[in-house]
């Protein structure tokens, strides 16, 4: 395995971590947007509570992916940034507004407009970001994105648009699955479990339907990647299908901890299937990994720094998830809020 391949593997793993962790945070924003009925406020509070300690750390995976890409594959990054400028700028707007709205709602005490305003901004921004990132990823597979293809090129095919929708549905699916568990361990929110269970089942079904619609579009709009997909990605597809149906089964059986694992595995399998089919292109027809890589000495330095960094970060990340995963002692959220 060369340094280039190793770095690609690190980037794809980080992207998967981003999808599974931050993806669920965005998906939770989608459920915030769709919340209605007499439990809407309590659902929103559960969502805010679940995001609080982790969303910033989850978000750093994206920064890591960006930095690793421009450090490791600088010429490809320059080209991709030009080709995807519009969807990336809109994803960025979503990231900024989502984060700001979250803290303004949590700490603003109404000083800068009512909570409902920031709640709405939070929810809408949360839904925009995964759509734009889905479009961006799919556009790299089409072979129609170059430095001069213009801002609208990434939106120019049904494949990229449906991929954006797919990303939103998938993040909503992950969020609903995670929230089933969160609600179940929170004495004050136990009665919300059935609602999130219904949402999880609905999102799983919808994700399956959208992925079926996506396959013919992949072959039509991204032929190069589609052929590699047939050659290489079948094992991942099988895994994704098994874990997808498995998720429905275990959610049905109310096994929510297990459901986290199967749902995560299904999403990771889809992502890996795409990555395998994309290899060795970063932007099909415009940049391959090898051609756009930085010097070997720089790649080695990056990989060494990443190895050391991950040794420090992964245990800390585990600590974070562990500290906040256990059953609630007291409702600290309210206590902080009311201070």
């Amino acid at each position, binding site marked *: 395995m060369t340094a280039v391949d190793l770095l690609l593997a690190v980037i794809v793993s980080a992207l998967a971590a981003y999808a599974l962790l931050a993806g669920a945070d965005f998906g939770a924003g989608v459920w915030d947007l769709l919340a209605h009925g007499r439990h809407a406020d309590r659902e929103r509070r559960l969502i805010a509570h679940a995001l609080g*300690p982790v969303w910033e750390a989850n*978000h750093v995976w994206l920064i890591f992916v960006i930095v690793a890409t*421009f450090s490791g594959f600088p010429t490809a*990054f320059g080209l991709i940034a030009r080709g995807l400028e519009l969807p990336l700028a809109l994803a960025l707007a979503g990231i900024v507004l989502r984060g700001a709205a979250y803290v303004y709602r949590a700490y603003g005490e109404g000083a*800068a407009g009512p909570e409902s305003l920031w709640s709405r901004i939070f929810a809408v921004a949360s839904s925009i970001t995964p759509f734009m990132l889905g479009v961006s990823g799919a556009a790299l597979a089409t072979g129609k994105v170059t430095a001069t293809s213009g*801002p609208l090129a990434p939106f120019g095919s049904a494949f990229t648009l449906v991929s954006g929708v797919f990303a939103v549905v998938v993040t909503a699916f992950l969020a609903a699955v995670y929230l089933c568990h969160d609600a179940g361990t929170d004495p004050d929110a136990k009665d919300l479990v059935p609602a999130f269970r219904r949402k999880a089942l609905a999102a799983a079904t919808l994700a399956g339907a959208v992925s079926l619609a996506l396959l013919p579009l992949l072959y039509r709009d991204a032929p190069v990647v589609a052929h590699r997909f047939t050659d290489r990605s079948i094992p991942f597809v099988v895994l994704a299908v098994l874990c997808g149906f498995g998720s429905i089964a275990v959610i049905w059986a109310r096994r929510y901890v297990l459901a986290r694992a199967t749902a995560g595995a299904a999403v990771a399998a889809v992502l890996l299937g795409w990555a395998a089919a994309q290899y060795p292109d970063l932007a099909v027809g415009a940049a391959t990994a090898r051609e756009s890589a*930085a010097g070997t000495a720089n790649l080695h330095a990056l990989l060494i720094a990443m190895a050391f960094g991950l040794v420090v970060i992964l245990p800390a990340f585990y600590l974070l998830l562990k500290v906040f995963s256990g059953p609630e002692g007291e409702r600290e959220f309210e206590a902080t809020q009311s201070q």
Partner: protein
Amino acid sequence: MLGSTLTDARVQTGFSLAFHIVFAVFGVGLPWLLIVTEGRWLRTGDAVWLALTKKWSRVMAVLFAIGAVSGTVLSFEFGLLWPAFMARYGGVLGLPFTLEAFAFFAEAIFVGLYLYGWKRLSPRAHWLTLWPIAISGTLSTLFIVTANAWMNVPTGIKEVGGKVVSAEPLAPLTGPGALPESLHMLLAAIMCTGGVVAAVYAVGMLRGRRDAYHRRGFRVGLVTVLAAAPVQLVVGDLAARVVEKYQPAKLAAMEGLAHTRDHAPLTLGGIYDPHTGKIRFGIEIPDGLSLLTGFRADKTIRGLDILPAKEQPATPVVHLAFDTMVGAGMAILGLATLLAAVALWRRRKGIRPLIPLNRPWLVAGALTGPAAMFAMLAGWEVTEAGRQPWIVYGRMTVREAATTSGGIGWSLAATVLVYLGLATALVLILRRLATGAPPSLAADSDLPTPLDPDSSALESPRPEHAHLEGTPR
């Protein structure tokens, strides 16, 4: 002019950087102050320290989030606005950026544990989570500024025909500008945090809220900004020497020196006139610049004329910004010296508190906040405008680096609108947070204790308020 892609890209970058820096400095400085206040609370059980800790941690929560998202904007903008720069030098700058990403990772993880872990961690473990936040915030400042230092003094790189053929991975971290410039920024961040904290509590006291909560908040902030000032003088001097050696045109612009000469004067203030090459309304100290840089009057200093006019930085802006920074810094240093003398005198006489709290001192303390912020922003203006027209000094111009995309005007307008909206909301929220001690404290803290504020009744160990949250168990 606005409307040209190059100018729009520059304005958007400058605006985004300024927005990020103004809020991110508190993410760097506040954790260190929290280590002090929460540590004091752990040792004494004093409710005032807990109240300050809680308040500042809420401020940190908001500002850290804004710093995080606006930092993400910058990492995208490198590619969106300066694609040619990233395509050529992204690999060279990979190491500092990657290390910065990890530092940011650690910061975000422990910020989550800190802000939401009051009940889930023991008080001691909770206090300990501040250390990784403070250390990684400091490291991320140092790493990110080394990337800028490398753009100023690009070393360890070989290029053939506009392509990097080899680059030493460690060059950005070991370059001559790396240490002085990154330390200069770190101290600036700490001074800004201390100054603004001091300013908030000074204004509170000027408005009559003279309780222990305000006195201590003021003291922690003021001591921080004033103690850092002399160190900053030394580090800033080192940074300027690196500029003199490696970026002579920037130094000439900072000092408004048009022509290379010995016995170069030092001109304080004034406006540089690019047509005559002279500074109007400035105070000239004969031989000053030669003495400062070379320690002898006949030291030759390179002027702007070492470069053709087209390659010179915008001297009027650079000189003004530089003198703003130095002037504000010197004012803070002057206050530090004066206050140190007064505190020593008061200690000899047995007067408490050591820091006098009458009106002139409070006004002076309140001004350290804006002074530090202005100095910091002016300093960035010096380092960026002073490097023009280069993005990587001597290797790539800003013009070559910029995007050629046509839609940048829209992106600039959207950025300015969104950021102005967010900044307005943020200011409103911070003002709401700055409304004094929590009611449970304020009720008893209006009892002034003229001789020693630290002996007032409400500061006895373990008052009831301390049991509300996070009490040692």
